[in-house]
């Protein structure tokens, strides 16, 4: 098949961001790259169902997410590689940064429920609107908003931040949050 040049460009242009999202979903670079590859194969096999003029990137993200949900869910029972181990399996990113802060953030992110992490990343990093994110995740806009809010709150708790100048462990804060009371 001859590929339309604009399609080719749009698909390749979306790859870096698709990879970042895929890594956040499966927590493993190799697996993420396989996921992106499978996504591209599916997308191009069904390119006719893409509506020109709409957001190619959002379309690809939707395919990737759905594919991940259906495929990965099965595998997860075999390889228990979910939330808790997500952080450890990511070897590429933290060291080159050498930032303790970023590593702590990544670890905290790994402890979020998958639904919340996904919503937070799509809105906060991939740059999709709440509406686009709701379409990608197949749920209501309000659901996305609430997931993003809960994700932020949980991250702030895990990282013990109440304000920007308080970024980092703070035993008193941590004790209060752990106690759950006021």
């Amino acid at each position: 098949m001859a590929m339309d040049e604009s399609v080719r460009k749009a698909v390749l242009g979306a790859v870096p961001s698709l990879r970042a999202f895929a890594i956040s979903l499966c927590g493993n670079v190799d697996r993420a790259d396989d996921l992106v590859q499978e996504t591209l194969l599916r997308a191009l096999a069904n390119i006719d169902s893409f509506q020109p003029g709409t957001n190619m990137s959002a379309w690809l993200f939707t395919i990737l997410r759905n594919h991940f949900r259906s495929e990965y869910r099965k595998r997860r029972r075999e390889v228990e590689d979910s939330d808790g181990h997500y952080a450890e399996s990511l070897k590429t990113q933290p060291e080159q940064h050498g930032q303790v802060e970023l590593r702590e953030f990544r670890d905290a992110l790994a402890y979020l429920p998958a639904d919340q992490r996904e919503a937070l990343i799509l809105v906060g990093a991939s740059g999709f609107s709440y509406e686009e994110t709701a379409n990608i995740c197949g749920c209501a806009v309000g659901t996305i908003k609430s997931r993003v809010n809960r994700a932020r709150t949980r991250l702030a708790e895990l990282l013990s931040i109440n304000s920007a100048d308080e970024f980092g462990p703070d035993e008193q804060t941590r004790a209060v949050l752990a106690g759950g009371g006021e």
Partner: protein
Amino acid sequence: METAATRPKKDHAKPAKLGREVQARLGQQLRALYDDVVSQGVPDRFTELLNRLDGSGNKDKR
């Protein structure tokens, strides 16, 4: 200008409502993590995949 000292202390009573600074900080961290991958660009395997799928385009392999 509002400072931590002048601001009402209700923030502490409501951990569920995050301040703008906190949200901004979290967003910054999130993007740093994400952009780290994005900045790696398009690995060869994906360019090659598209070349392969493009059938006729096989001649300029690479």
